[in-house]
């Protein structure tokens, strides 16, 4: 997927929010959608089950306007976290320019986090993407819960962040850490623009 089209002066980035079910990926997108001015955001499309779990995926197009002469558009996706939606996850992940892995900080969810993170690496490997090269950040969500129920960011890093990528603590429902996470992920994606192979014309 082209990241920058110099001829048309357009930048289009696809960022996928990955993580286990109910970790807060959709909450991230909903918060961004609420904070974005009306004219900057497209319709957020979300197909959910009755249990408010993401069935297929969420899609939030963000038109960031002209940044330094380039019309910049972000496409934010979430994947369905539930284990049985494996093929949908792979489909959504295709062509991602960056990944935000949203982990659930609750101790009891630790295994699901690890499993989902492994699943992400498997999916990337299947698509021939080197996970070390792909811009990625970790978000430890639900840090607002009582301390006895959640792992500290340090603990989460110990379990998940073996590649030492940027990590953020967050409370996605309240919006804490949501933009910090997106900003860092966007920055990592945009920093790659100068890599010739990623530039289209």
């Amino acid at each position, binding site marked *: 997927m082209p990241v*920058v089209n*110099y*001829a048309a*002066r357009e*930048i289009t980035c696809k960022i996928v929010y990955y993580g286990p079910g109910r970790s807060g990926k959709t909450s991230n997108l909903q918060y961004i959608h609420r*904070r*974005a*001015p009306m*004219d*900057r955001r497209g319709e957020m499309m979300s197909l959910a089950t009755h249990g408010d779990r993401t069935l297929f995926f969420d899609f939030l197009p963000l038109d*960031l*306007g*002209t*940044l*330094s*002469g*380039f019309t*910049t558009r972000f496409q934010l996706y979430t994947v369905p976290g539930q284990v049985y939606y494996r093929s949908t996850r792979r489909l959504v992940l295709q062509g991602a320019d960056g990944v935000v892995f949203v982990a659930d900080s609750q101790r009891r969810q630790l295994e699901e986090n690890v499993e989902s993170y492994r699943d992400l690496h498997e999916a990337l490997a299947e698509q021939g993407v080197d996970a070390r090269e792909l811009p990625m950040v970790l978000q430890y969500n639900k840090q607002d819960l009582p301390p006895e129920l959640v792992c500290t960011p340090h603990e989460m890093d110990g379990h998940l962040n073996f590649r030492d990528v940027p990590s953020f603590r967050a409370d996605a429902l309240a*919006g804490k850490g949501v*933009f910090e996470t*997106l*900003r860092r992920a*966007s*920055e990592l994606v*945009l*920093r*790659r*623009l*100068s890599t*010739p192979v990623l*530039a289209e*014309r």
Partner: protein
Amino acid sequence: MLDGRFRFESVVAGPSNRLAVAAANAVADSPGKVYQPLFLHGPSGVGKTHLLGAIGFQVLQLNRKYTVQYRPADEFVEQLRGALMKGDLHAWRREWDAVNVLLLDDVHLLDGHAEAQAELMRLIEQAQANGGQVILAGHRPPGELDGFDQRLVTSMSGGLIVDIAAPEFETRLGILWLWRNIRVLDLDDASLDELARLDVGSVKDLLTLFDKIVAQRTRQPGTPAAGVARIVVAQAREERAIAPDEFSSFLNELSAVVSSSVEQWRARLASVVARWAGEGYVTTSLERYLESTEPPDLDAIETQFAGLVNQLRDLEQEAARLDPKLAGVSVFRDPGRLDEARSIVMRALAAYDPPPAPAEHLTIETFASGARNQLALRSAGEVIALPGSRFNPLFIHGPQSSGKTHLAHAIANALKERDGGAWTVAVIDAAALGEELIEALRMGALERWRMRYRAADALVVDNVQRIGGSDRLQEEFFHLFNAFVEAQRQVVLTSDVPPSRVPSMTARLQKRFESGLVVEIGRVSEEEAVARHTPVPAGDEAAAPTIDAWFEDSVDGEPVRRMFINSSGIDSFFLDPEKVITEWPGLDGRVLEDAR
């Protein structure tokens, strides 16, 4: 209305505004020639008004005769409304029509003002037609403005649209250094650095904080500057934390990242593409460079493309002069189709301003063949049968009055008949060619001169030895000759000497003259000369070629020749040698007496 403080010297260019500053400079240097209109957009306080002022100031510096007007859009609306109420619309229009450079600020304030929008649209169109310049500034790009007439949006989008983002750290620091120097203040680098690290959304905010530091230091002169700066910055951070605008802050940071991440040479090339595309030119060749992994020589590329565009413009002008229907044809907007554009102009030239044609009466049928010109005649036959492919060029040489001119014209007449008479064959004496070249150079119409000949399907140059006297003519003829031979179009040359003996001829031309077939026509024998004056048997007048040779000997000039020749060939009256004076008897007036 221009604020004289706003100049390019006081603009600090950084990733957030570099493109806008470059575009503003280009417009100020060449108003009406580059981006029409130029539209600057960005949030409040990022320097749009400053750039408008700088453009106006520089335009006036370069040309005092220009009329430059700066207006915020709300004033523009108010003044128009006032004029409408007083019934002074014509006077208002006259005033604005006289403006060469219009700088309209805060254009988003025209939202819902239909009259003002209509007037602005009219002014943009007028500037486009008259070579004026319009520069607009607003918070949003034209396409995102609400309450605007779609036609005005299209007009405003027709030139270059550039955004200015909030200044990033380096630019903020540069601005602070500049202010410190301008206001000659004792503020150390650390204080400025501290202040620059604060992520303010605009230059205005930065200036406010800068002024706060200055005011604090004035009140407490003993306080170290760095300490004051830290306090002001801390206060500012606190205030900003109270009312965060996450999305704006996100956008600002992202803008800085985009600025520093996109390769500057690509961004510059993209702006060049945008400029020419905006003027309606096909930019495929420029866009190809965007695929390069290494930065190309941008100056050379820009110069080359501009050169091609200039050639296209000249060609279009020439085409429109010949045939107004050709103006605006798409081929004149595509530098990649320059040859095609040339070909269109050449065809138009061939149709409306054809090169000189052969004399109609000099045909193969009227050419007197004999032993002395058998080879030349056979070669002529080959050339007529297979022009451009066998003997190219055909170089015929021989003494004066040997019939070279006749044969060359005869070949030309035969070639003219090809494809149902569709061929254009240029036939000219080398001396006349030289005169035409001098005239073309004098009139600045060299390209037209070139194309007029290059449009021909075949070229015949008589007395080519006369080219030898002029280096410039040799140079031009060399390229003309090459163009014909390379395109496999026939060239026929005549000379009174063989190529190797043409005086003052460059070696490269001599070599080319010898590259085809060189044939000689022998001298006219005494018997043949006598035969030329022998009465023609009755009823066989068409078989009297010698009278033509006689004309070549005695008459130098088309008007005289026409007196003796009718449309069907030679006037039979002059075929009788008894009725023609072949030798002038003297200057004693006796002949005139006798003739009476």
